[in-house]
Structures are given as structure tokens and as C-alpha cells.
């Protein structure tokens, strides 16, 4: 490592750790959850609920018809079919109930935090005054613009912005993340959410939401599904499914006259069984259970679908593409100075420098040159010169008996001037080093030194240059390559100058960058992309991001962001991890793929069911049709029962898949399609042949079922 002279980037920490090969997936399904949701599933048999799902409504009507028929002319076969049909309806409801049950549990936790909060309202509070009257009111009684005071140990009574003070807040009620976060007045970290708990200090919060419309209220509504509307694509898919259902209904209803002509009249039970086997019950039952997994709260399903369609991702450089701060990457000495000398000087000048850049210099010196960290106390006669905006450098003056050694480290122009002021002449290669670093997108820090014996003049000199650079997170390059293969363009947004931006963009492998970006530039970029029909996604947390968040098709606001940003976005990332944007795209795609895969599977299933049911119905009159009984099922009744049983059981078997989503590997559309067609198309064709045959091996032994 040391041979290259460039240290390996520090392992990513914090939010970025989750980035490593992390793939979207939901939780596993707990079998107990199925049991718990069972009563809900039964309740949903109410026809008024079922009618919203045309496919399953047909199944329920069929179940009622077979029940009546079985009562009128009882037979084992009629009752077996009836039982399976009711089970089919219940299983379908179970899928939905499990999906909703998950949300309900979350909502319950949320509601508990909300109910009993008392607020300490400050009547007539003005900034800077301390003598406002404090009164106790229930949290629900707070109005827009009220000011409340919250102290350590208390629950914040409503959504708002901190207007005075700084505090650490436990937001685990919303994010599930137990590490406290800092909230302070002013800036982009001022937003607090009702129901979260202040752990330390005291803040004054200005309430920004009306009672009943707080963030928590909306979250409860969303996770409970109360506000869940069908998304546009769900509606389109439902239309297709409904029309398939109608086609199959007609096909079966008109079959009876044909059958009569063939002298093979069919019983109602058999006809209902055929309809249920043919209509797309698998996807019809599971469609509503296919939801989003991940700690992202979408304000609308439309946003999730749009996420799958995104063409352009706007990614903030800091925190998303690079680790938050610039880090020292190399010591570049001038002629006549060894690297060790420069490293030593750099380290000395940075001991008291608490900025991340300063820390990284100490770390680099230690890693590369084994210079152990020295503490401030160790250097007895040291006087530290702090960084100021005016001097734009920091350093140390070391005094011993013989001489005073002054070290300065800072912006190139500032340090060079300091050297000249102290009688030195920076050599030309300093300029070359500085330019080289700048051109590569890094930031040069020049280190200067002057050693002054007592009562003597000495010339200052430049020892060398420290190369500070943005460190691109590990794995980002591969990630952007994947996105490119998926047809998604990535644009890095940064406040850096174009030179720096270009270098980082190249290193990270993004397609494009927007340097020295102002909110107006961002807005213009989004508009430009959208004009060509492209969909744009971005993250943001500041108030000045709000217009762009609103303009973007997918605007993911950080939960730590201002309320203006959260209002403007159509998704909120509860983990406040800007890298989530990439995951959000994958979640959107996974959701759509799951729908398509289950639809394909459902339709492909019909082929096998025909091969089970048609010979069972008509081989009696046209013995040639028995050739279609390629599964060699035991008897007509057993064949039909097996087909219907398979139809019901496959729903339960696929509930986990629907909740979790199908496995998704980023690749081009053509490859994805091939993979999914083989898996769900061909699988859907073959699997039921096996399943029905296996069920037939068991079902034929039901006593009384000929």
C-alpha cells in the first residue's frame, strides 16, 4: 500500500456501510403472521369488500353457487370443490391482510407515541426573550405558529422547526434508528417531528402543522392503508385482469350449450370450477399484497412506480458519492525536503486542528510514516495558531532554547504570502505541485516553515504540499455501471468548481455533473431533462431544495430535513440516507417486476389446468380427449379437485414472494425480460403440471370422491 503513496480510503462508516452490495428486500414472512391475519381474512369475505377485486369476487360468487348446489344435491365432490373455493377466497384475503397487518403493527407503535403528549406552550414568545408565559396544553390542542418548549426527557408534541437551542433527539419512533440525532435552530437540521423524544438540552419549537395533520398522522394513515389508493399501473393491470376474467366467463358459460350438443351436460360445480381455474386468481389475489419494502415512506404509490421509470438520478456529491469530507491523500515535498520531513511537519501543524481535514492529515501521517500521534500536552512550548477565515491557515509555533520553529499549513495563496512575508521565496515546483493537484480535482494545502534562531533573521521556505481529495465511497463505480446498464443516467450535483467536479465525476463514474450548483441550476437541469420526457429523481433536505424536490418526479426528502423539504418531496427516507435514492429506484422496479412476474405465472398456469379439466369433462363422450390427460390423473373428479386445490394453494405459497418481491438483479431490460420469462413464464407453464399431479396422488384417496 505504501508503495503507491496513496492511502486506501478509510472504510465507509455510518450510512454508507449499508450500501455495500445491499439489495432491496423486505422482511421474511413469519408463519405466525399468517395465523394472526386469519380473522381479518375472514372478515374480508364481506361481498362489499370483495367486489373491489373483480377476479376474487367472481371466485366468491362461484363459491356461493357451489355451496348452494352442494346443499341441493350433496356429493363428496361438490363439497370438496366448495371447500377449496372458499379457501381460495380466504387465501386471497389472507395475502392482503398480512400486508396490511404489517402496517397496522407499525401504526400502533406510532399511535402510542402520539396520544398522551402534553405540550408546554409559550404564549407570546419572541426570539431573544426569555420571559414568555408557559402553559400546559394537550398536544392535540396546538395551533400553527405556536411555540413550545421541550426539555430533556420530554416528547416533542408536534411537527415543527427548532427556533432556539440545540438538542439531541431520539427519533426511533419514526425511523427505528436508535442513535440520537442533533436538532438545532437555523439551517437544515431544524426540523423536529412530533412523537420523538428530546434526550438532552432544551429547545423551543415553532409548530408547523395543524393538529391531525402532523407527519405522524399522515404516516399512520399511509401504513394502515387507509389512504392507500390504487396506483395508475395497478389500475391498468386490474383492467386487463378483469377483461381476462370476462373472456373466461364467456368461454365457460357458452361451453354448456356446446356440451349439451355433445351430450355431456356439465354440472354447475364443474363449470364454476373451470371458471375459477381459468381466471387469473393468482395475481388477482396477490396484487394488493405486492408492496414496497424498505424504510421509505412514499406519499403516493404513483411515486413508487415513477421510481421504477426514472431516467435520470441527481445525486448530491457529499454523502452520496463521496464520504462527507475531503481527506489527505498524499504528501508531496518540494526538492530538498524528504517526504518524512513533510509528513512530520504536516502532522505537527495539524495536532490542534479539529477539522476533518486536519484529522485526516494526522491519520495519513500515522498510516504511511508510522508517525504516532502527538497530543497537544506533549509539546511544552507550543503555541497553536488556529484557522481563521482571514488568515486561511493554521499552524503551530514551537519554541525551544535555541530557536523558534513556526509551521503554517493552509490555502496555497495564504501560505505563499506568509513565506514571502517571512523573507522566503517559494520555488517554482511549489506552483507545479499546486496546479497539478488542482487539475486532478484535489485541494492543495501548502505547508510552510521558518526556523528562527533567537535574535536572528531566517528565510521561510515551503516544505511541500498536502494533497486533499474527496474520497469516493467504495462500490459506487460498480453501482453507477449497473445503473447505466439499466438505462439510468447519473448526474452528480456539487458546489465544487468544475475542475474538481470533473475529476470526482470521473473517478466515481457518474455520467454527468453539475458544478457550482445553485438551487436554480438544479431546477433548470430537472426541467431540461423532463422536457425530453425523462423522469428525474433527486434527494434533498434543505429548504432551498424544496422547489427542485417538488419539480422532480421522484423527490426523496431526508427525514432529518426541513419540513419544507418533506412537504415538497413525494417520499421521505426515514433513515435519512441520501444513497437510498438508488435503492428507491430498485424498489420501484422490483415492485413492477413482481406484478409482471405473477401475472405471467398466473396466465401460464391455465395451460396445465386445461389439460387437467377438459379431458375430465369430456373424455366420457369423446374418448379421444383422454389423450389430453397427459398427467394421467386418477379420475375426472379427482382431476378437477386437484386443479382447484393447486389453484388455492399456490396463492398461499406465493404470499411471501409477493410481500418480499421477486429477486432483482440490475441489468439491461432485454436480459431481465429473458430471465423473468424463463423463470415465471416457463415455470408457470411447468410447475402446475407437477403440482396438480402430486395433489391428485393424495386427493384420489378422499373417500367418496370417485
Amino acid at each position, binding site marked *: 500500500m505504501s508503495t503507491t503513496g496513496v492511502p486506501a480510503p478509510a472504510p465507509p462508516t455510518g450510512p454508507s456501510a449499508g450500501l455495500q452490495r445491499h439489495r432491496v428486500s423486505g422482511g421474511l414472512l413469519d408463519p405466525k403472521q399468517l395465523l394472526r391475519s386469519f380473522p381479518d381474512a375472514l372478515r374480508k369475505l364481506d361481498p362489499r369488500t370483495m367486489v373491489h377485486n373483480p377476479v376474487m369476487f367472481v371466485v366468491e360468487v362461484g363459491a356461493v353457487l357451489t355451496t348452494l348446489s352442494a346443499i341441493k344435491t350433496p356429493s363428496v365432490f361438490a363439497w370438496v370443490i366448495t371447500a377449496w373455493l372458499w379457501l381460495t377466497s380466504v387465501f386471497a384475503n389472507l395475502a392482503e391482510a398480512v400486508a396490511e397487518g404489517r402496517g397496522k403493527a407499525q401504526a400502533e407503535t406510532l399511535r402510542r407515541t402520539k396520544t398522551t403528549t402534553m405540550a408546554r406552550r409559550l404564549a407570546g414568545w419572541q426570539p431573544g426573550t426569555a420571559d414568555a408565559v408557559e402553559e400546559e396544553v394537550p398536544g392535540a390542542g396546538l395551533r400553527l405558529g405556536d411555540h413550545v418548549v421541550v426539555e430533556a426527557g420530554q416528547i416533542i408534541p408536534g411537527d415543527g422547526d427548532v427556533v432556539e437551542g440545540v438538542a439531541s433527539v431520539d427519533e426511533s419512533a419514526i425511523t427505528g434508528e436508535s442513535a440520537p440525532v442533533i436538532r438545532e435552530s437555523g439551517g437544515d437540521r431544524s426540523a423536529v417531528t412530533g412523537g420523538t423524544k428530546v434526550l438532552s438540552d432544551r429547545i423551543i419549537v415553532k409548530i408547523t402543522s395543524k393538529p391531525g395533520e402532523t407527519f405522524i398522522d399522515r404516516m399512520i394513515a399511509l401504513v394502515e392503508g387507509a389512504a392507500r389508493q390504487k396506483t395508475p399501473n395497478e389500475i391498468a393491470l386490474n383492467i386487463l385482469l378483469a377483461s381476462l376474467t370476462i373472456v373466461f366467463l364467456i368461454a*365457460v358459460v357458452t361451453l354448456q350449450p356446446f356440451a349439451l350438443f355433445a351430450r355431456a351436460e356439465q354440472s354447475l360445480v364443474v363449470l364454476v370450477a373451470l371458471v375459477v381455474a381459468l381466471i387469473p386468481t393468482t395475481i388477482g389475489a396477490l396484487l394488493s399484497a405486492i408492496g414496497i419494502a424498505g424504510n421509505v415512506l412514499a406519499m403516493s404509490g404513483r411515486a413508487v412506480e415513477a421510481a421504477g421509470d426514472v431516467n435520470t438520478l441527481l445525486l448530491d456529491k457529499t454523502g452520496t458519492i463521496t464520504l462527507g469530507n475531503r481527506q489527505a491523500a498524499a504528501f508531496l515535498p518540494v526538492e530538498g525536503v524528504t517526504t518524512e520531513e513533510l509528513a512530520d511537519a504536516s502532522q505537527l501543524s495539524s495536532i490542534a486542528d479539529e477539522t476533518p481535514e486536519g484529522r485526516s492529515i494526522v491519520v495519513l501521517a500515522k498510516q504511511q510514516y508510522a508517525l504516532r500521534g502527538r497530543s497537544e500536552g506533549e509539546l511544552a512550548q507550543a503555541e497553536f495558531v488556529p484557522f481563521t477565515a482571514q488568515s486561511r491557515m493554521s499552524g503551530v509555533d514551537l519554541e525551544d532554547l535555541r530557536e523558534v520553529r513556526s509551521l503554517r499549513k493552509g490555502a496555497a495563496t495564504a501560505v505563499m504570502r506568509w513565506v514571502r512575508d517571512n523573507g522566503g521565496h517559494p520555488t517554482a515546483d511549489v506552483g507545479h505541485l499546486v496546479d497539478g493537484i488542482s487539475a486532478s480535482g484535489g485541494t492543495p494545502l501548502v505547508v510552510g516553515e521558518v526556523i528562527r534562531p533567537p535574535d536572528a533573521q531566517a528565510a521561510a521556505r515551503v516544505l511541500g504540499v498536502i494533497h486533499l481529495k474527496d474520497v469516493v465511497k467504495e462500490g459506487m463505480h460498480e453501482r453507477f455501471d449497473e445503473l447505466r446498464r439499466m438505462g439510468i443516467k447519473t448526474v452528480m450535483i456539487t458546489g465544487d468548481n468544475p475542475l474538481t467536479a470533473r475529476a470526482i465525476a470521473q473517478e466515481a463514474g457518474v455520467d454527468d455533473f453539475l458544478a457550482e450548483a445553485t438551487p436554480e441550476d438544479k431546477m433548470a437541469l430537472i426541467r431540461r431533462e423532463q422536457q425530453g420526457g*425523462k423522469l428525474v429523481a433527486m434527494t434533498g433536505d434543505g429548504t432551498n431544495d424544496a422547489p427542485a424536490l417538488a419539480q422532480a418526479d421522484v423527490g426523496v426528502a431526508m427525514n432529518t430535513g426541513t419540513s419544507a423539504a418533506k412537504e415538497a418531496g413525494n417520499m421521505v427516507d426515514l433513515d435519512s440516507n441520501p444513497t437510498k435514492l438508488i435503492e428507491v429506484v430498485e424498489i420501484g422496479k422490483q415492485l*413492477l417486476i413482481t406484478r409482471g412476474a405473477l401475472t405471467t405465472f398466473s396466465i401460464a398456469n391455465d395451460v396445465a389446468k386445461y389439460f387437467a379439466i377438459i379431458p375430465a369433462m369430456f373424455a366420457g363422450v369423446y374418448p379421444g380427449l383422454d389423450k389430453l390427460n397427459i398427467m394421467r390423473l386418477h379420475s375426472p373428479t379427482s382431476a378437477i379437485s386437484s386443479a382447484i386445490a393447486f389453484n388455492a394453494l399456490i396463492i398461499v405459497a406465493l404470499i411471501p414472494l409477493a410481500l418480499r418481491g421477486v429477486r432483482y438483479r440490475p441489468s439491461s431490460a432485454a436480459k431481465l425480460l429473458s430471465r423473468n420469462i424463463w423463470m*415465471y413464464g416457463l415455470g408457470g407453464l411447468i410447475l402446475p403440471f407437477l403440482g396438480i399431479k402430486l395433489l391428485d396422488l393424495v386427493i384420489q384417496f378422499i373417500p367418496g370422491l370417485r
Partner: protein
Amino acid sequence: MNDTFAGWLQVLVLVVALALSFRPLGDYMAHILTTTRHLWAERLIYKAGGVHGDADQKWSVYLRSVLAFSLVSVLFLYAFLRLQNHLLLSVGMQAVPPDQSFNTAASFVTNTNWQSYSGESAIGHLVQMAGLAVQNFVSAAMGIAVVAALVRGFTRKKTDQLGNFWVDLTRIVVRLLLPVSLVFAIVLVAAGTVQNFHGVNDIITISGGHQRLTGGPVASQEAIKEFGTNGGGLYNANSAHPFESPNAFTNLIEIYLLLVISFSLPRTFGKMVGDHRQGYAIVAVMALIWAASVAIVTANELHSVSSAAGHAAGGMMEGKEARFGIWSSALFAVSTTLTSCGAVNSFHDSYTPGGGGMTIFNMMLGEIAPGGTGSGLYGILILAIVAVFVAGLMVGRTPEYLGKKLRGQEMKYASLYILTTPAVVLTGAGLAMAFPDERAAMLNSGPHGFSEVLYAFTSAANNNGSAFAGLSVNTVWYNTTLGLAMIVGRFLPMVFVLALAGSLAQQQPVPVTAGTLPTHRPQFVGLLTGVVLIVVGLTYFPALALGPVAESLEGLR
């Protein structure tokens, strides 16, 4: 030259001829449908009709024009048929009864050309030329006009303008159908097809018997009958009649004519959407299904013959003309049932169960491989939309085809389209089988009899017009229900196609990226073929099982 060699040769000649026509004809049609220039003859027509040649129409206005024009056509033709005995050149034909007049009017206006009459003994020359032949031109042109509107829905953005129906109709007739039909009428006359105004001639045959032969303007009808995928011949025997198609050469010409527009339209489509590969993918699906069907029917007719006579003849020759033989008959039968033509040179009723069943299945595919003029292309584009919708989801995007999103509205129209024809076919056949009188119209009993009824409604609702033969359809009930089936099967889908076009045209297209489902690759060709077969297969399998499937499996027992 033995039969097999001749058979392969004519397939080869046909495919080469179609392939050679693909580009020039496709490009020419695209030119007709997109150019802004009017011919003087067209300007004259617009002036006479009070049409604004440069004014585009919204989808609803376009549709209204289609429907109004068709309504007037039906009424005019009905009156014509009812009054033909009072008109010139009736060559002694009587007025056609009301139910049959309705059926015939509906049949020709809908490009079906189902004939519950025998041409030579029911329809006079004037009605043939000024009534039926006119519809042969305009009904074919109407199909192309409607698909032009649909393609414009894909190509245009943020507009409600889909072109002008009257302009499209006029141009297609004036610049395409009339000149080409004229040329081929002359070719057919040269090759031996009849063209005269003779009445009924009594002829004494070699064996001394009497035969009544009616002459007529046959060649001029014959060209547009095939070119416009109409199929209604002057004679009951249709293209099996030597006056219509005297020899193998005219037979091949007719097959070429009935396929050429529909097989070239994908080129027009590709050109109009600015990506020829899209057209190639569509034509590949059409060609694949057509080729498979030709292979299946030919093989069935040659080999799955159970009778001793069949074995002696080297195949199922019953119902086929000896001068065409099995290969030409099978080729014609497949081509005519896969287009909405419906002309026949042999009788599908007499085919082997497998071959005859295939002709039914061909029609059930919805006339898409390559289908009727225009209707074939819009039919397959609707199925492409369904395929793209499901497959598009599987690539993780909300589905889009040619840059247009397939949202609820688009899927509503596409779903209604694919719902319409099966509903008409199955309901019609179901009713026919439920009534004892209508059942009695069958020639055969058992599954074959059922196939006759199924064939009739499939043929009518899909606007094919060919008859299985065997079923006596000239009854008030069949004339009325089949007439209605033809009208519903023609115009309801057009309503949905135009509404879909209107909805697509209003969209802003989305750009194509690597994440977009590619719709020009072999992968998509396979996918679309699969969707076509599965959607149709699942819909009709129970009905087919009781007809041709039962029959052919019975034969194998």
C-alpha cells in the same frame, strides 16, 4: 414435376414475391398516408364531398366519419339488393329477400364478404359492380385508414389530431387499390379469367347433361376481391370456380394478392414510426404464424388421411380442385383464413379434422397473421400492446410501447378490443347450439357438425367471410345473427382502436434507454407469438376441444 416439388416451388415463389413487394409497397403506402400533396382527382372528390383536405380530425370525429360512411353504405347496399330486379343488367335476378339483403350488405361493408347466397344465381351484374365491388374497395381502404390513425397515435405527440378519414380513404382507393386492381384484372384476364356481361348460358356437357353458366365482370371483381382481402366471389364456388381462377398461375396470383398488402403494412408502420426494425419484428411474427400454419395444414392434408380413397389419392382430395391439388389448396386455405379474405379454392369442411381445425384456429387468432388490410396490423398491434404491458412490467418499468405509456386508459381500450371478438363468436355459437332449429342446419352430426357452427360465427365475427360449407346459413336466424356478428366484430374494435389512438396521440413520448423493453428483437418476436397463441388458445380451447380437437383425437384413437 411431382406434387411435392411443385408445392415447394410455389411456396418459394410466393414468399419471394411477397418479400420483393415488402419494401416498395410498404414505403409507398407510408407515402400515401403521410404526404401533404393532393392529386387533382382527389381534390375533385374533396370538392364534391365538401371535405377539407388539409383539416385533421380528432379521434371521435374520425370514428364518426367511419361509422357514418359505413351506415350509409349498408343502407345503400341494402336498398340496391332489394331493388335489383328493377335495375339494369340484372340478368334476370330477383330481389334479394330482406334478411339476406341485410346479411349481404353488412357482409360487404364490413370487409367480411360472407355469402349466404350463390353469386351466379342471386346477384346481377350491376349490383356486383356498383354495389358489392365498390364496397370491396372502400371497406378495404377503411381498414388501412383506421390503422393509419392508430400509427399516427404512436408517432404524434401532444395532439388530438389523427388525420382525416376522408382523405385517407380517398387516397388509398385512388392511389393504391384502383391502379393495382386494374393491372391485376388485366393479368387475370390474360391468364384466362372471365370478363363479360353475359347472362345465363345453358350448356350441354360432354355427357349430355345441362349446365347453367353465368358470365360476368369476373376478373375485375377478382383482383380487388383478393387485393382488398374481401373474398366475396361472383360464384358460389368462389376461387374454386374455373371462371374465377382457371389455373395454378391465377391461383398463385390470387394468393399473392390477398397477402401482399397486409404483409407490407408492417413496413409502412416501421417507416411511419421512424424505426424499420419495429416493422420487421411485427412482420416476423406474422410470417412465423403463417408459415407454421401452412406447414400444419399441408401436412395434415397430405398425411392424416384415414380413408382408403384418400390414401389412393396421396392425400385428402375431397373438396379440393384436382387442378390445384393439395399443396395449392392448403396454401390458399391458410392464407385466406389468416387474412380476413375468406375467398376459398377448396372446401374447408372436407379437410381433415386437423387441417380444418387449423383454419378455424387461424381465424380465431383474430386475423393478424397477416390479417385483413389494415385490420391485420391494428389487430396485432393491440396484441403487441398486451404483450408489452405484461413483459414491460417484468423489466421493472411501467410499460411503454414505441415511447408511449400504456396506462389504464390504453389498457382499457386494448382489453375491450381483445374481449369483443371472442364474446361475439362464443355467444353466437352458444346461441346457435342452444336452439334446436339452428342446430338442425348442420350438415354433419357430432363434433364436425359443431365445427361448422363454430366456423360460421368465427368467420363472421372476425370478418373473414369464408364458409366451412356444410351449414345451411340462408335462414332468417343465421342471416340476422351472422350479420350482427359481422357488424359488431368490425366496428366495435374500430371504436376501441381509434379511442386508443386518440389517447396515445395526446401523450408526450418517453425516451428510449437501455432500461426500455426492446420491441424489435427476436426476443420480442417470440414473446408476441407466444402471447398471440396463449391468449387465443386459452379463450377458445374448450370450444375447440369439443369440435376439431375431439374429432382429430378421435381419428387417432
